[in-house]
């Protein structure tokens, strides 16, 4: 079917008939809204789209999409997606996960999904808290975080989703923010269009258990100084007055002011296509408040995809050996006959 002949779908066509049960004001609403906006632009029919999630507030997401979906078990969504994609390569498969779901109980599966690089889109809603279980610290909660299970402050050294994704050989790695709806929409679209595992971390506000975790990145006054938008081939410039930049000092990034002897050419230029992940990793280590935190596509390179490779092996085997014939197989090797 060509794209022209497809019925024109709208955001409303992707809404299911289920009541949405997130808390009012939750950042998840905004991600859902952007997803419904982006999907009609992809030219993929609804029935070819599948959302698979684990368990958590974020993982309720598939129920709200009028596509195929599976709300699975805690942390394991990548496994379901892998089996589905291998056997149905023409489906567009999305994985929805949370910081607890994807990085705590499901860390192992996330790591392996990313390295295998099946054509999946993994969206991790990072609210730095366990929402559904009512407010315990998560693997992304900062040190010292006071929660129900850490009344004296968390002593669990946090990890950083994009550093993990890059460490796992992630070929498409991006970050956005729930409130930054335009940018979020762009990232979802880029993720969908990339062939291979696309990993997108979304900074998501849980206004009930971790309100304001990202206010520095969303408040009007602070966001221009606290975040930096990555654009391929462009220098890393940020700030309300766009007068600050990131320069490499040896192996370390540093914040510099433009002018006063520093020109744009002295700055670090973003290269999302670099075959070496070092730059992307360095960017993933830039943290508020020492640095503006990058949003955008950190890395977008083409790697072999497990699903393609496996199905290619099936084709090669068929070409070389011919379509399998069980009767022939049964009689291959040593057999003997018994007559009556």
């Amino acid at each position, binding site marked *: 079917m060509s794209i022209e002949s497809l019925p024109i779908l709208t955001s409303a066509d992707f809404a*299911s008939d*289920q009541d949405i049960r997130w808390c009012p004001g939750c950042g998840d609403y905004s991600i859902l809204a952007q997803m419904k906006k982006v999907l009609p632009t992809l030219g993929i*029919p*609804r*029935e*070819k789209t*599948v*959302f*698979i999630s684990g*368990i958590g507030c974020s993982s309720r997401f*598939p*129920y709200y*999409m009028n*596509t*195929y*979906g*599976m*709300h*699975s*078990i805690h942390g*394991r969504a990548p*496994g*379901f*997606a*892998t*089996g*589905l*994609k*291998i*056997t*149905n390569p*023409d*489906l567009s498969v999305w994985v929805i996960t949370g910081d607890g779901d994807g990085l705590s109980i499901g860390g*192992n599966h996330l*790591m*392996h999904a990313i390295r295998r690089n099946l054509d999946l889109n993994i969206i991790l809603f990072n609210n730095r808290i366990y929402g559904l279980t009512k407010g315990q610290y998560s693997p992304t909660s900062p040190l010292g975080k006071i929660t129900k299970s850490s009344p004296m402050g968390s002593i669990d050294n946090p990890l950083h989703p994009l550093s993990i994704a890059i460490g796992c050989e992630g070929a498409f790695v991006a970050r956005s923010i729930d409130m930054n709806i335009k940018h979020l929409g762009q990232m979802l679209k880029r993720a969908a269009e990339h062939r291979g595992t696309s990993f997108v971390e979304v900074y998501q506000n849980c206004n009930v258990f971790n309100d304001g975790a990202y206010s520095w990145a969303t408040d009007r006054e602070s966001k221009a100084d606290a975040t930096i938008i990555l654009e391929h081939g462009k220098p890393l410039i940020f700030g309300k007055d766009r007068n600050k930049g990131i320069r490499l000092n040896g192996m370390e990034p540093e914040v510099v002011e433009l002018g006063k002897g520093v020109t744009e050419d002295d700055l670090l230029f973003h290269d999302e296509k670099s075959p070496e992940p070092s730059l992307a990793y360095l960017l993933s280590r830039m943290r508020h408040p020492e640095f503006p935190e990058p949003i955008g596509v950190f890395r977008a390179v083409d790697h072999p995809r497990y699903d393609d490779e*496996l*199905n290619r*092996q*099936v084709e*090669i*085997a*068929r070409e070389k*050996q*011919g*379509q*399998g014939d*069980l*009767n022939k*197989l*049964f*009689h291959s*090797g*040593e*057999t*003997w*006959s*018994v*007559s*009556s």
Partner: protein
Amino acid sequence: MSTTTEGTSGSAKQVFTIEGATVRLAGDSGDGMQLAGMQFTNTSALAGNDIATFPDYPAEIRAPRGTLAGVSGFQLHFSSDDIFTPGDKLNALVAMNPAALKTNLADLEPNGILIVNVDAFDKKGLSLAHYEKNPLETGELDGYNLIKVNMTTLTRGAVKDLGLNVRVADRCRNFFAMGLLYWLYGRSTDVTLRFIDAKFGAKPDVAEANRRTLLAGRNYGETTEALPSSYHIDPAKLTPGTYRNMTGNQALAWGFMAAAECSGKELFLGSYPITPASDILHELSKFKNFGVRTFQAEDEIAAITSVIGAAFGGAMAITTSSGPGIALKGEAMGLAMILELPLLIINVQRGGPSTGLPTKTEQSDLLQAMFGRNGECPIPIVSACSPADCFDTAIEAWRIAVRFMTPVVVLSDGYIANGAEPWRIPDIDDLPKIKITHPTGDDADTFHPYSRDEHLARPWAIPGTPGLMHRIGGLEKQDITGDVCYDPDNHQHMTDLRAKKVANIADDIPLQDVNGPEKGDLLVLGWGGTFGACTTAVERCRAEGLSVAHAHLRYLNPFPANLAELMGRYKKVLIPELNMGQLRFLIRATFLVDAAGLNKVKGKPFAVSEIADEIKRLLA
């Protein structure tokens, strides 16, 4: 035993015709005993004998050489009669070193043939086996027909001019032992010579060395004065047809491929390696040209979740593992059950708990299969009873899974997985077709993901089908619509429905049959890999005039519909199991039948005599 003077091998010595024999090859795990055993098996099968095998090897890949822990054995029972077990007592034992002698001698019958490699009985070998004195010299083996062979020396001699180093040359010793056994039991060397060509063809010197050693072993038998006669075994009277040798794991793998073909599906396997199930993964990985896709997952959880994903997508999806891996799959099995998707979970059982005895057999995961999940979570269970039976079990499990839209557990065990027996090759076109229908876009107006058919099965609508978009998940769902639903009465209703659906399978499976009198003093009720021992023990006791019958369960959940009535026809019920009484627990709880148990967990199958003795004790 009848005698003739000309053997099949053209031997000048006397040849005795015997019904059959049980032979065990035992040596160090580096001595190639499993390979030798498999060759002897194939050769005997091709000679038309019925066969049953019992490979027994240590959990360590290479325990220190020569030690008791490193002994690996392969037992073969061949016969011109129908046989069901690898045999209780050995008629012949080949011991490649002192450790193998020490750990296996107890199983050799009095006056049995004992072939030892004397070269290995040096000071070091004896001390590794904790022998203070050389048993070949103390007279302690006088009760056996001891045949001392300088196997190492003779092997080195046979390959002398090939220029191989000593280690490579010594590795041919197992072929010498094979050659000797082939002479002793009148076997042709053809099968093994063909095997050598195929396996070592790329290394002509190694191929030649093995060839020479095999023939040297056979010629040694012909010339040595220690062996005055050899044996001949007539072909067994098997049902006419073409046969091949099959292990249980291979039969399962091929059965799944056949089930896929009979149902018009492509097979997907998600698995994580674990003994003794890995060979199913290895086998299926070979068949990409059949559309078989295997996925070696990062763990057992990923393996089963990938399978659930593939099942959602309409594939024939299966996962293979053993007890510890099944424990990890528990949560996902619960999800598969509430999603009501068809898939197979195969447990090739091994000794437990925990890591337990990885390479030894046991039947102690029945209650895990039955209950090992949270919530009310009934899952059908079928079990295989012999290596060849694994083929039919695989197909039957898939038939149930798709007809009732449910995960199904398939129980095998280490004994049938690695054991081999003749398998009569079916014609794939004669196997019954398994009908599967998927709703299409035309059904969009009436489609509900949790509506049900006459079997209470829900429709299997697969992603990609226009108009049938729906969401499934682990939360309780509303009857018919499948929407998330917390209503108390609905939860009760759905729980009842799911239980009823599984219970109804009893109406769709054959009634339980019995081997033996319709009623009587004792029913031996078994399941799984004890089939051969139960069958033989019961037949033996009946021949002695006892009133005893045997029923062997393939279906463990639900039980066949006539089981209660059947058990009621006997005064006593005996349940032999390689666990501490798991089927007995279910039978007592379900039917209030006061069954007796015969239980052991020693990593070994039952000897026929153990069951026969218990039958006699109960009927005394």
